[in-house]
């Protein structure tokens, strides 16, 4: 599948944003100290701005941007519509959370709204993941890994951001960095499990069954319908060279997961906490963009079979 920049930015940015908002909500719910009020309010501000940037970026992908509002109507059947509704509903919940935390920090209302903000944020990430997980023609997306992986990457990337804000506020990364490190480890294991899963999958169909012949009949393309590229080949037939894919997977492992893990551990044990936690965020951002690019580029679509492509 073609990795469109707007969608890579959307899913990565909203992952950071909603992950951070979820941690902030849980932080207050678990009884954050009074002194953390600035951290929470600043964090909510950063989360809301990042989420908004991501959502604007996703609208850039539309052919008719002025009609984007129509996407809120079909939430009963469409995960894309549900994502839009969830993203919009998350704003008032998160803002109410920030308001109560400002007025009565650590109060019962703030704690309850913290849980609600975390649920709304992670719910939005879940809807985003389900857009991909529900697409039957793409085996690399339509599997039980996609939704939990997106949630884990959000908690991990948002966690590095949370640890950075914690360090900026208190001078030490403390437990926040430990949580980020744990989430990074979980995300790393999830990515390895995902690659293992998709590499072992067999194709969803054969060319023979795609053209109505018995499944195990041999079939090969003779003449294509057209000699230049068309929409289907550009969008669904995107191919990445195997040697590049191997390299990019290694880069993803190191940049997206291993380095942020190491940096978070360093920050936790107060080895240059500010530099370490800032580096964790930077590496996670670049690494997850690479990871997301691969998630698209290595996904194959059944319709490419008609053009003789391997799926």
């Amino acid at each position, binding site marked *: 599948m073609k990795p469109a920049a707007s969608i890579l930015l959307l899913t990565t940015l909203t992952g950071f944003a909603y992950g951070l908002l979820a941690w902030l909500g849980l932080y207050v719910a678990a009884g954050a100290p009074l002194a953390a009020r600035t951290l929470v309010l600043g964090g909510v501000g950063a989360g809301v701005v990042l989420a908004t940037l991501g959502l604007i970026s996703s609208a850039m992908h539309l052919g008719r941007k002025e009609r984007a509002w129509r*996407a809120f109507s079909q939430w*009963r059947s469409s995960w894309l519509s549900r994502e839009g509704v969830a993203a919009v509903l998350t704003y008032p919940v998160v803002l109410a959370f920030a308001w109560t935390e400002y007025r009565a920090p650590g109060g019962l209302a703030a704690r309850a709204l913290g849980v609600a903000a975390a649920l709304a944020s992670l719910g939005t990430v879940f809807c985003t993941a389900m857009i991909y997980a529900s697409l039957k023609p793409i085996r690399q997306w339509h599997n039980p890994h996609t939704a939990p992986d997106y949630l884990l990457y959000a908690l991990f990337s948002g966690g590095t951001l949370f640890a950075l804000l914690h360090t900026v506020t208190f001078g030490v990364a403390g437990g926040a960095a430990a949580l980020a490190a744990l989430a990074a480890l979980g995300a790393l294991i999830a990515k390895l499990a995902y690659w293992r899963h998709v590499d072992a999958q067999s194709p969803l169909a054969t060319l023979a069954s795609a053209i109505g012949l018995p499944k195990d009949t041999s079939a090969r393309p003779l003449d294509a319908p057209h000699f230049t590229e068309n929409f289907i080949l550009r969008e669904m037939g995107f191919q990445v060279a195997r040697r590049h894919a191997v390299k990019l997977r290694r880069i993803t492992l190191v940049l997206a997961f291993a380095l942020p893990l190491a940096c978070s551990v360093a920050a936790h044990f107060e080895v240059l906490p500010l530099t370490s936690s800032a580096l964790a965020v930077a590496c996670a951002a670049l690494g997850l963009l690479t990871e997301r690019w691969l998630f698209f580029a290595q996904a194959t679509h059944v319709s490419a079979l008609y053009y003789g492509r391997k799926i």
Partner: protein
Amino acid sequence: MTMLPKREPTARKMGLVIDLDTCVGCHACAVNCKEWNTGGEAGILPDYDKYGANPDGVWFNRIHSYESGSGESSRTVNFPRSCLHCENPLCVTVCPTGASFKRAEDGIVLIDTDICIGCKLCSWACPYGAREFDEDNGVMRKCTLCIDRIYDESRPPAEREPACVATCPAKARHFGDLADPDSKVSKLVKERGGTDLLPELGYRPTNKYLPPRRAQIPTAPRESAGSGGRGIGTALLKLLDKALSR
């Protein structure tokens, strides 16, 4: 509304039956489809770089040719590919706006291009590659089963069929109601063992494809010189054949 409509038991299921045995791969259906639909009510079907090095554009119908089997049993299979108006169309349910919909009365899957936001998700949801993006108007396009022909009462009844069916010189394309067991198309599917494309994905396409048949025409055995007679003439011919065959 992108929820799938409840199908009335008496509702029609309009669709195509395509005969892979007689299709000659001439592309006439694709050309007439393009011709009709670029001038129809839905407006222009765009072309990009028309006279340049990389011509491209939106087509509702694409004709592939494949080779199947090997040796004596190998054969060419010409394969027209278009929307199959599935009974379980994921392209409809993923649509966030309601632009993509399936009609309850005849099962035709359509796009309301006045509502479509051009998110392309429906094209990702279709395993048949039947939807193509209109870059000029920023919306998705697809086969309409020539809805502006099949119900056009100003046409003589014999002409109320899709453009691709009307033009097929090999009569390899058939149009009708697949919910009616007595219709011409249903009978064809029954007689010839019509199949679904990609049945393993569970989209339950309405359009059916009739599989290619094995050649039924007996061929005469090869002739060899003089095999048919006796006498000096035949003997001489045999000698000549032997000499020439060296």
